[in-house]
């Protein structure tokens, strides 16, 4: 690893950690309805929304009602987003006159954005109208993020409260998270991104005259659009030339900001955050990475504050940081080492004052190895899935890291809200294991962990591996699934495994060579995304409800402290054990085989 790579990591972690306490505290105030500056400005709007919706903000819900409201709201979101896409041709703000995407693609996209996955099987700049992007996709970027936050807050309430049935009011929680947290932060980030060159307009696409005309060849087709073949059966190539370049336009910055802040990851353009209009400079890259971890990191403090012991939050954050650094280091080291096959061909991959060197296939020069690998790590330990480099072209171990990040359940910072609640579920499992070892009733934050919590925790944790591995197994067993792989051999298997891991964890990044815009993948991945999102959410809300109803047991000599190094080690151990044991066989068939092949002579 270069000094620059370490320096970037240090700057990144310092900036993120500086925001943890102030933002965490602010989140706690806002979500608990305490007086705060944003509510003084936005209070009228908040009350207007409650009046329109017929919501009594004082009426709280039990966990079942909370879960039903959440599922209903998100299901309506899918229906609306599906309709918007299918009707976009007839709706305004479609300057390029894009037709509707196919039904299976529209369905996949609708589920994808509502579940905070933002897996994209389409090419946005030639598919989605401005209206679909801003009033459809971007709205779900906000609302899926708010959904994540409120589930985390509900679980925190379950731990913080005692002897009550209610865990909050879903409508109020979603409104506050959106209005006071996501919207103002997104606005600030959007303008910061515009200052760097991210576009924000409603123009039609612009035609530029190239400085040097370009000649290129493409397969010739007959009148029916079928490719022409020569006598040897090879496609006939026709040579064309063009003097223009089309520059895509659109309201990008407003969507880019919430795409990162809400750990969504759905690009305005196909190349996502690698596109210069989404991410034009090293500084915009830094802002986007920071936006990704901002709220997930701060929620650990919110948790500590609301349960009345900030050490509990710091312990969870410490476990996350300890996992983060080696993951980044491995990814960065592998990519900086480069591809030995390219060196053999005469390419210079050594880092110097004049170049970043390393494996630059699928990477942008302005980000280099450090900015690309830190982004890749940040986007996959959280549920973001935005990419500023193409993970498919990573070296085997470099690409192994994003895959492993997701397989660990996205608990290192994690998705917005999902990261914290998933980590707390691991904490519950951890204290249970510890309780078994020393023969005591396990407890966490003053709450007894009993059979019901353990059942729900097991469901929350095991759903993901179940659907990921089953889905991968189905896909490699049928022709429609195998047809999706773009690269030959072990790497092709990795593409399919990565696709299901990404969908099951609601990440949305891809080994993007995979051709997933087929009815088979659109349907099965939509199913995986939906189950991977809402099955654990219902289980977590059930835990929240059950914990809220329990009495608080006072700390005694027999209580295992859950803020010290022992607990942190236990938590990390639980995460690694579950993740590693579940996925090692699958990983051995993909990146590990490939690594052995790459470096063998």
């Amino acid at each position: 690893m270069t000094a620059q790579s370490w320096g970037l990591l240090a700057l990144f972690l310092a900036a993120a950690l500086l925001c943890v306490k102030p933002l965490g505290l602010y989140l706690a105030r806002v979500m608990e309805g305490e007086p705060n500056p944003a509510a003084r400005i936005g209070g009228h709007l908040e009350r207007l929304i409650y009046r329109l919706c017929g919501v009594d903000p004082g009426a709280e819900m039990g966990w079942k009602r909370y879960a039903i409201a959440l599922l209903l709201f998100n299901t309506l979101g899918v229906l609306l987003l599906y309709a918007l896409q299918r009707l976009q041709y007839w709706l305004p703000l479609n300057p390029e006159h894009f037709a509707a995407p196919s039904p299976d693609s529209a369905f996949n996209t609708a589920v994808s954005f509502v579940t905070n996955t933002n897996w994209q099987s389409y090419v946005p700049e030639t598919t989605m109208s401005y209206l679909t992007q801003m009033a459809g996709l971007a709205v779900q970027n906000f609302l899926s993020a708010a959904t994540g936050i409120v589930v985390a807050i509900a679980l925190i309430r379950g731990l913080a409260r005692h002897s009550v049935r209610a865990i909050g009011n879903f409508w109020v929680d979603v409104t506050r998270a959106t209005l006071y947290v996501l919207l103002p932060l997104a606005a600030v980030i959007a303008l910061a991104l515009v200052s760097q060159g991210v576009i924000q307009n409603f123009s039609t696409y612009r035609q530029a005259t190239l400085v040097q005309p370009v000649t290129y060849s493409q397969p010739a087709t007959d009148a029916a659009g079928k490719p022409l073949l020569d006598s040897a059966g090879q496609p006939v190539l026709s040579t064309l030339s063009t003097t223009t370049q089309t520059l895509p336009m659109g309201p990008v910055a407003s969507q880019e900001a919430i795409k990162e802040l809400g750990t969504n990851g759905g690009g305005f353009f196909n190349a996502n955050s690698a596109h210069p209009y989404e991410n034009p400079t090293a500084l915009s890259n830094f802002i986007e990475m920071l936006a990704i971890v901002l709220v997930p990191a701060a929620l650990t403090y919110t948790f500590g504050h609301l349960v009345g012991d900030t050490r509990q939050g710091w312990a969870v954050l410490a476990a996350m940081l300890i996992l983060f650094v080696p993951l980044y280091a491995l990814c960065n080291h592998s990519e900086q080492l480069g591809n030995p096959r390219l060196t053999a061909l005469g390419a210079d991959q050594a880092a110097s004052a004049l170049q970043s060197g390393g494996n630059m296939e699928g990477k942008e020069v302005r980000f280099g190895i450090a900015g690309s690998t830190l982004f890749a790590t940040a986007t996959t330990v959280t549920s973001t899935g935005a990419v500023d480099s193409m993970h498919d072209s990573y070296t085997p171990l470099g690409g192994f890291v994003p895959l492993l990040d997701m397989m660990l359940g996205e608990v290192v910072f994690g998705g917005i809200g999902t990261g914290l609640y998933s980590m707390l579920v691991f904490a519950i499992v951890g204290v249970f294991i510890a309780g078994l070892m020393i023969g005591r009733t396990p407890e966490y934050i003053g709450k007894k962990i009993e059979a019901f919590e353990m059942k729900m925790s097991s469901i929350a944790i095991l759903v993901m591996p179940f659907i990921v591995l089953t889905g991968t197994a189905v896909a490699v067993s049928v022709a429609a699934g195998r047809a999706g792989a773009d690269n030959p051999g072990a790497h092709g298997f990795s593409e399919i495994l990565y696709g299901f891991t990404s969908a099951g964890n609601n990440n949305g990044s891809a080994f993007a060579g995979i051709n997933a815009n087929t009815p088979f993948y659109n349907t099965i991945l939509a199913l995986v995304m939906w189950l991977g999102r809402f099955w654990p959410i219902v289980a977590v809300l059930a835990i929240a409800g059950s914990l809220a109803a329990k009495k608080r047991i006072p700390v005694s000599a027999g209580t295992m402290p859950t803020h010290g190094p022992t607990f942190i080690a236990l938590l990390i151990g639980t995460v690694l054990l579950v993740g590693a044991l579940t996925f090692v066989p699958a990983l051995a068939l993909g990146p590990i085989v490939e690594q052995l092949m790459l470096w063998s002579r």
Partner: protein
Amino acid sequence: MKNMLRTASVLLAAMVVLLGVAYPLLITGVARVVFPAQAAGSLIVRHGRLIGSRLIGQPFSDRRYFWSRPSATAPQPYNGLDSTGSNLGPLNPALLAQVHARIAALRAADPGNTAPVPVDLVTASASGLDPDISLAAAYYQAGRVARVRGLRVAQVRALIAAHARGGSLGVLGDPRVNVLELNLALDAMK
């Protein structure tokens, strides 16, 4: 349940108006006033004609110009409507064949130059629209460009140095140069 359905529908509608219409319009309005050039796409206009964007790379293959990075967009390189990387894995024979051909083309255009080729000059970028090449890749091409244009190598190297960027705060950004701007500066040289 019926009540809930009404609440959910109205809340969703309110959020669409607020987040999907008011928010992007507000950002567009502010951006247009505060950062008009950036919001419009950092466009380069010469003699009333749009010739590109400072941020979006263009293909160059003439020996008089600095070449850009390879682009995997289809059908033509640097197609603004198809931003994409190659997505070829590190062992894919297609990748190795492409890199081999690119190195051969660079060497054929500059027969005397036997230095190893900077990796970014023979690998496709992530977006297919990368506006930059590394400083190493620019200096690698300096001799060829100088010879074809009848300039001194020192002149061309000075031009590269004048356009060099990178290393804000010491760690942000890698050593690089914007190819379109560099080539426009070349054309402007007498």
